[in-house]
C-alpha cells in the first residue's frame, strides 16, 4: 500500500490529498517581465526576481487554500520539454512549431548524445520548499515524452533516444531526492501516442525511478486511453494522475474493467473550459471514482496543468477541488 510507503518517507497526508498537475498561469507582472526579457529590456536577474515573486505567490496561495501537496507552478518554464533541453547537453533549440490554433513552441533538436551536466530543477525545488511546511512535488518531464517531443538527428532510433534520455534524467531524479524531495512527479503526456511503444516508456521510467527513496507520480493526458490501458498500469510509479473530467474521454469503464492497484490522482475539473464546476459536479465525479477505486488510494486534482486558464479561473477550479475533498473528509461515509 502506497500510504505505508509515504509514511516510511515521513509524509502523512489526509484522506483525499489535494494536489495539482503542475503548471499554473503566470501572473501579469511575470508575463510582462518575460516579454521585456525577450525584447532585451530587462536582464535575466530581473526576470528571475519576478519568477521568484510569482512562485512565492502560488506557494502561499496553495498553502492557505488547503492544498496538501504543493507545486511550484512552473513560473520559470516556457514549456515542459524545452526547459529541460536548455539545460542538458546534446540539444539545440529549434525554430517555432505550431501546437494548435495560434500557439507555438520551440521544438528541441537532439544533435549529439544527451547529457545531464548540472541540476535543472533543484534550485526551484529548494526555493519553493523553503516557503512552506507542506511537501512540494518535484516536477520532471519523462524520457519518453522528451524523446517524442524533440527532433532526433543523433540517435539511431526512438528506443536509443529514450533510453539515453532516461539514464540522464535519472541523475536529476537523484539530485531531487538528495535535495530532500520525497514526492516526485515524472510526466509522460506523450505516452499514449504510440501504444506499441508502451514497453519502452515503462522501461525508461524504470531506469528513472528504480531503487530511489521517493513516492513517484506520473501524469498522462489527451490521448487514446483505450489503446494504452491496462498496460499503463505497468508504469513503475506509485500514483497515476489521470484526467477524469475531460468531456470527450470517458475512461471510467476502462478503470472498471481493470481496477488499478496504484494510487490514482483523479482529475476532477476540466482545465480546457473557463467555466468553474460546482462543488456538486466535482463531488459527483469523485463519487464515480469511489465506485471503482478504494478511498485510501484516491488523490484529487485538476485534469491537467492550469497554465492556460487565468489566475482567477485556476484558483476557482482548485478551490472547488479542495472544497469537495474537505467535505468528504468530514463525512466520509456518504
Amino acid at each position, binding site marked *: 500500500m502506497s500510504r505505508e510507503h509515504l509514511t516510511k518517507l515521513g509524509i502523512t497526508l489526509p484522506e483525499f490529498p489535494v494536489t495539482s498537475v503542475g503548471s499554473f498561469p503566470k501572473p501579469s507582472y511575470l508575463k510582462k517581465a518575460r516579454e521585456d526579457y525577450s525584447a532585451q529590456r530587462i536582464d535575466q536577474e530581473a526576470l528571475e526576481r519576478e519568477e521568484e515573486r510569482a512562485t512565492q505567490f502560488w506557494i502561499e496561495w496553495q498553502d492557505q487554500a488547503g492544498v496538501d501537496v504543493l507545486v511550484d507552478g512552473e513560473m520559470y518554464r516556457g514549456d515542459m520539454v524545452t526547459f529541460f533541453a536548455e539545460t542538458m547537453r546534446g540539444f539545440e533549440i529549434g*525554430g*517555432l512549431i*505550431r501546437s494548435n*490554433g495560434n500557439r507555438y513552441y520551440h521544438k528541441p533538436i537532439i544533435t549529439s548524445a544527451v547529457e545531464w551536466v548540472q541540476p535543472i530543477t533543484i534550485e526551484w525545488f529548494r526555493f519553493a520548499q523553503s516557503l512552506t511546511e507542506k511537501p512540494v512535488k518535484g516536477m520532471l518531464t519523462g524520457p519518453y515524452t522528451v524523446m517524442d517531443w524533440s*527532433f532526433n538527428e543523433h540517435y539511431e532510433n526512438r528506443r536509443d533516444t529514450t533510453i539515453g534520455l532516461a539514464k540522464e534524467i535519472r541523475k536529476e531524479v537523484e539530485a531531487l531526492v538528495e535535495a530532500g524531495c520525497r514526492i516526485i512527479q515524472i510526466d509522460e503526456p506523450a505516452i499514449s*501516442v504510440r501504444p506499441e511503444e508502451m514497453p519502452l516508456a515503462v522501461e525508461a521510467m524504470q531506469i528513472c525511478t528504480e531503487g530511489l527513496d521517493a513516492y513517484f507520480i506520473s501524469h498522462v493526458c489527451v490521448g487514446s486511453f483505450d489503446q494504452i490501458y491496462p498496460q499503463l498500469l505497468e508504469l513503475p510509479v506509485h500514483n497515476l494522475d489521470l484526467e477524469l473530467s475531460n468531456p470527450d474521454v470517458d475512461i471510467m469503464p476502462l478503470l472498471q474493467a481493470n481496477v488499478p492497484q496504484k494510487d490514482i490522482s483523479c482529475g476532477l475539473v476540466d482545465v*480546457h473550459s473557463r467555466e468553474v464546476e460546482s462543488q456538486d459536479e466535482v463531488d459527483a465525479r469523485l463519487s464515480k471514482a469511489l465506485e471503482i477505486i478504494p478511498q485510501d488510494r484516491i488523490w484529487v486534482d485538476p485534469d491537467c496543468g492550469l497554465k492556460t486558464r487565468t489566475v482567477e479561473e485556476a484558483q476557482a477550479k482548485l478551490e472547488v477541488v479542495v472544497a469537495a475533498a474537505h467535505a468528504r473528509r468530514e463525512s466520509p461515509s456518504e
Partner: protein
Amino acid sequence: MRLVLTNNGSYPRVGDRPQERKLRVAHTKFAEGRISERDLKDTENWVSSEVIREQIAAGIELVTDGMVRWHDPVSHVAVSLENVRAGGLRRYFDSNFLYRQPIVEGEPRWVKSLLADDIAFSVKNSTRFVKGMLTGPYTTARMSIVNAPEYKDDIPKLTMAFAEAFANEIEAMAQAGAKVIQIDEPMVLRHPGDVGLVREALALFAEKKGKAELALCTYFGDAAKLYGDFQDMPVEIISLDFTYSEDLISNIEMVGSSKVLGLGIFNARNTRMDSKDEIFHFLDRVLPRVSTDYCYLNPSCGLEFLPRDRARKKLELMTSLRYRYLHAGGQ
C-alpha cells in the same frame, strides 16, 4: 520518367524571422479586438502568397497554399458544414499537434464553398500549378464526435454523409482552378478493413472533379497492406508515406503501379536532412516499376511539423537531389 516536385499539403505559416511572424501577431491582435476580420484575412492572403513564393523559389512545381488559413486539418472544412461544430482539443495522431474534434449534431450539409476563394487566390498568385487540399470524409468521420443519433456508431453512414457534402467542395475547388486535389485519408491505415468505404466515397468525388486530378494520400503509418487496394481507387494519383516501412517498397517492386505515385520519401517529421544514398537507392528500386510517365516527389506529410527554415531546406534538398539523380548521373 519525369519526377515532378510537390508539397504535401501544409507549410509552416510562422517562422523565426521577423517578417515570418506576421500571421501570429495578426491572430493575437484579432483575438484582442485590435484588428478587423478583413485585416486578418489580408494577412492570411499575404502569408499564403509568401508561402507559395517560397515553394516556387525552392523549386516546387505543384504548390499548395500551405493550409495557412486552416485551424487544423480535421476541423477546418468539417465545421464549415451545417450541423457540425468545433469541439475540444485532441492529439493529432502521434504528433504533438492538437486538433479540434468536429462534433456532428445532425446531417452534415454543404452550404457554400470554403476553399474555392483560397484556390482562386493561389492560382492568381502562383506561376506554378496549384494543388487543393481536403481531409477525406472517412478520416473526418473517424475523428469526429457524433451526437446525432442517426450517425451514432455508424461510420459508413457518416462517411458517406461527409462525402456527399465534400463532393460539392471538390467541384468548387476544381472550378476555381485546382490542377490536383489531394484527399488525405490517414485514418484508413488504422482501419484497413474500411478501405472499401474510402473507395465508395472517392467515387462521388470522381464525378465532380471536372478537369482536376484526384490524389489519395495517406501518411503516419504503413500503407503496405493496402497498396493493392489503392491501385483500384477512382483517382489518378496515390500518394504515400515511405518513412514507415520497407514492405511498402517491396510491394511496389512486386506489383508495380499503373497510377501516378506521390513518393513521400523525404521525412517531414524530422529536421535531419535525408541522405542522398537512401533517396537514390529508393528511386532505383521504385521508378522502374511504375508504368506512368511521371511520379511526384514530395515530403512524407505536411511540412508544418518542421520549423520554417528546415521545411524550406527539405524542399531545396528535394530539388537538388532530383537534379543530381536525373541529370548528373547520380552524383
